[in-house]
């Protein structure tokens, strides 16, 4: 059970990492505004906070 969930979270994580590298260097290269890469990376950071919150929610229970 722990392993299955681990693989799922791991996959989500790898996707986030790949998007964090690729999107600003592809879709957002021409968006010269705050709502381009600046906003995108800020949102990625918030997603990571949420991700860690969920992954660790059962720790110590």
């Amino acid at each position, binding site marked *: 059970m*722990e392993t299955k969930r681990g693989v799922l979270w*791991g996959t989500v*994580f790898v996707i*986030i*990492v790949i998007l*964090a*590298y690729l999107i*600003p*260097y592809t879709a*957002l*290269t*021409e*968006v*010269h*505004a*705050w709502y*381009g*890469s*600046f906003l995108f*990376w*800020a949102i*990625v*950071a*918030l997603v*990571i*906070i949420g*991700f*860690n*919150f969920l*992954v*660790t929610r*059962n*720790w*110590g229970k």
Partner: protein
Amino acid sequence: MSTYWVWIGVIIYIVISLFVAVISRRGNLTDMEGYFLGGRKMNGFLSAMSYSATTYSAFMMVGLAGLTYQGGVGALGFEIIYFIGVSLVALFGPKFWIAGKKKGYLTPSEMMGDRYESQTVAMIIALSNCLFLIPYSAVQLAGVGYLLQGMTNNAIPFTVGVVIATILALLFSFIAGIRSVVWTDSLQAIVMIITSTIVVLLVIHGLGGFSHFFDTLKQNHSDSLAVPGNGYFSFTTFLSMTLPWFFFSLSNPQVSQRLYMPGSLRGLRNMLMGFLVFGFIYTLVSVLWGFSALASFPHLETADLATPKLLSSHLVPPVLGVIVMIGILAAAVSTIDAILLTLSSLFSRDVYGNVKKGTSDAKQLQVGKVILPIIAILAFIFAELKLNLISVLSVASSAGLIVVVPAIFGTFFWKRGTAAGVISSVTIGAIVVLIVEFTGMEPPLNLGSGVWGLIVSTVIFIVVSLVTKAPVVKALEFVNIKVSDAKKIR
């Protein structure tokens, strides 16, 4: 900026933080576990603040701001990739914590020495950490020297700043070991985040508010809002810079050792979440700070001047400028003291403890306390000499530490990993990084030394492990650790 006010600020900072360091002297400080790990009883909030202050050095408000000034929003991406990498704590944290509780490990290298059943593994990892982290501390010390010198127009000479930072870092780590580091770190983290946030909000307000601020950037520096933008952050540069930092939370012993310290798994979680919230705010603030400098002073000679120029400008009231400067000083000192303490534990446990067999815990602690000022003095001398060699080693530090990462993954996730694999991968990987950095050669595919260090060490670790014999029973003990095992630990 008035030297008088700078001195007043520095003195207040010293008095308050020393007071905090002294009152933190509680609990058992007479054994290695008490002195270096706080008896594995640290609470979540203090751990989070201390983890933040240790991770974030003077680099953020000076270096990252300068990087933003120079290359634009790619600097934010650089820091966010590091931030994403901290999620590795969610994967490795409970495993470190459970293994530490069960076996009493004091350092990550000691743990790996046991997992691979080789004292040489522990020694080589500890020594390579020292090789890269002492110069890194030296550059942090030099940063304080330059900061005070720059803010006071040379009224406070470089050496005075370096001496102040060395003595403070030494006192904070010596007075009560990790307890004084954690308590002073927490205080410093709060100072860092509050002062920097206030000043950035004030500066952006002074520049006409957020929307006007970003409009100015868009009109005058539109390249700064996208990557590769002005070309500074090409994709290969971005990849080469970010990869070593992605693994920072594992590769840097001064933070990975923290995974042993919380009193419970809940505490470990609070440390991780608290750090992420802190890091998110501090990262945005530092990048906006760099953008503010770009909007206000677009024609500086070098990006290094971005922070000093902004701090001494009319946009920042003088008293607040001094407070922010103290925040930057605190960021540097809180990183150096943690590194000093960790290196002292690495040396006393993994080097001295293995070279001189059968030494008692008390003797190792005594050696650790003797080695602490020696490491501080070494860092001080390196900072004073301003040697090119030191700055090369410092730049190489994140790349040099990354070569241990395959061995850390192997510890918990690959039962075939062997001591010969670790020893060869760490040694050859570190040599590759050093050759690339020292010769200034153009590495293949334009990828930086850290990327090649990681590739080389991974390949060597796998190949050598496959042709040597792994300690199967011990390896399985580690590979089979699960989060649910924490329930069995009291």
